[in-house]
């Protein structure tokens, strides 16, 4: 059989962001691949050391716009840990609301892109229209459709009054039916099944070995969600089940995402129902002592981890983070092995890869 090496860029991979793959083919099947990141490397971990902790709230929100709230909220949690700040309960709930709105929009974007990749243009447009409900809600409440500017050290800087809470509750109601329908469609529609079931399989064992995280791991039956395993913010008071699938294929990954999006609706409703009264922020300008801390969260793509080290000044000595996508790229080797070239864009998009996050 003939072996050949091809190079694929974002256009061939149907990615929104620049990324290159070197794929080794045996005949028309994938034998191996080399992922070549770095196009979106903005030197951010270096920049954060030359910006103070306040500036870093805004800078980190621009790491990636799809999970933009997870970064400042997790970073702030690390600062708060170093400073020994307990954020007000109301702020915990409001951070969860912001994170869950972003999760719905992010998961829907991923499912939409995949519909587009397999030529289901009508479905693609439909998912994007449903996602628009969230985009509008974000703009109405936070003033921007992508970057919410919701977090500050010590809490949040937005509030939900009776009107905006009622507005958001209305949008959640509006989301339920379409999300339920989408789930059924991605689960049972024969055309979608034909392209996604049994495609790009990652077994549970391989998932462990490659240490994948987030929906990619949960689609292989790995019961790991940071919101449950290492509860933070309001999540220890909210009810939800970890969304799990077992097939480990493209379809399973989408079903996990759609189940989670539906669950996020419920989480937001729980937050709105139980929103405690009280202040939004603990202390406007706290002293940040020398110290180190780890903060974790479940970003839309999975486990996000921050390490912060401070020396008593308001510039970090080191601020390091590891995004979920970082853990998932390499496992594409397993998912793509033996797959026809035509399936590459679909499988790559099925891990919902974020390049801005990965490259930093």
């Amino acid at each position: 059989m003939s072996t050949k090496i091809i190079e694929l860029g974002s256009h061939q991979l149907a990615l929104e962001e620049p990324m290159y793959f070197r794929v080794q083919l045996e005949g028309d099947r994938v034998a191996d691949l080399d992922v070549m990141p770095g196009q979106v490397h903005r030197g951010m971990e270096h920049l954060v050391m030359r910006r103070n902790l306040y500036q870093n709230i805004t800078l980190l929100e621009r790491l990636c716009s799809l999970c933009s709230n997870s970064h400042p909220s997790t970073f702030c949690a690390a600062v708060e840990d170093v400073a020994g700040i307990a954020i007000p309960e109301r702020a915990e709930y409001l951070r969860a609301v912001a994170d869950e709105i972003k999760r719905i929009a992010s998961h829907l974007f991923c499912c939409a892109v995949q519909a587009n990749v397999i030529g289901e243009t009508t479905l693609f447009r439909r998912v994007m229209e449903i996602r628009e409900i969230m985009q509008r809600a974000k703009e109405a409440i936070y003033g921007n459709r992508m970057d919410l500017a919701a977090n500050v050290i010590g809490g949040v800087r937005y509030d939900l009054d009776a009107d905006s809470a009622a507005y958001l509750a209305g949008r959640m109601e509006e989301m339920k039916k379409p999300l339920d329908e989408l789930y059924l469609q991605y689960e049972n529609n024969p055309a979608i099944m034909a392209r996604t079931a049994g495609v790009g399989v990652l077994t549970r064992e391989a998932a462990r070995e490659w240490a994948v995280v987030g929906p990619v791991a949960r689609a292989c039956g790995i019961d790991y969600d940071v919101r449950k395993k290492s509860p933070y913010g309001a999540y220890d008071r909210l009810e939800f089940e970890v969304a799990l699938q077992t097939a480990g294929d493209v379809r399973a990954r989408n079903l996990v995402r759609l189940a989670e999006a539906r669950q996020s609706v419920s989480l937001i409703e729980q937050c709105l129902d139980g929103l405690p009264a009280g202040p939004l922020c603990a202390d406007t300008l706290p002293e940040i002592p020398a110290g180190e801390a780890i903060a974790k969260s479940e970003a839309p793509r999975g486990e996000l981890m921050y390490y912060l080290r401070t020396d008593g000044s308001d510039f970090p000595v080191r601020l390091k983070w590891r995004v979920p996508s970082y853990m998932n790229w390499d496992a594409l080797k397993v998912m793509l092995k033996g797959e026809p070239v035509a399936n590459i864009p679909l499988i790559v998009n099925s891990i919902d890869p974020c390049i801005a996050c990965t490259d930093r």
Partner: protein
Amino acid sequence: MSDRTSPASDNLPLPLSTRERGPETSPHPDPLPEGKGIVDAGGGRLYPDQFIHNVAAALAGAAGEQTEVAWRRDRKGVLTGWCRLPSGVALLPAARAVAELQGRLAMVTAYLPERAQEKGEREIAYHFDLDGATLTLTVILPLEWSRVPSLTPIFRNCDWQERELMELYDVQVVGHPDPRRLFLDHSLPHAPFERLVPYSTFTNAATSKALWDKVMAGAREDA
């Protein structure tokens, strides 16, 4: 926390394999059963002392008796363990012990700590997930000619972490299967995160200055 050993003993004489104590020769407690034992009936976190004991015993067995883990429990009951390894040689056996405990490598952080130059030291922190708890193993290395063994043979997903570490810092990862640059463009100088590299050559805010000069000039025309 244990005392740091002298910088001399941090100088890794490589290869390590002949000198290290393999975890298989040390007594090992049972690894944590997956998803069990650390959630109480109310769904809150409850790490039994057994868990802390297991980790401590495994690390002491692998990396030497002086190895101690300081645990912090946050308001939600989530544990973070902090362990400064007594020497660089202890890294491989300690990492193996964590692997035996079903630990997952979560992140690797290299950094130049406060007064790095003065002390002639740098640190690398290896963060592991133990079913929700985070264990950080920190090695202290000499600032110059730093070398660490690759953990990629133990944790496959350490591959990228180590490639990144090697391009950003002046640290050699010994035994890495594929030590190519990962994110940095080839036109950029090696190890941009070293303070030893003069910042001014590539991060001197020249762009900001040029742009603001134009903003000020442009605004003057208006006035």
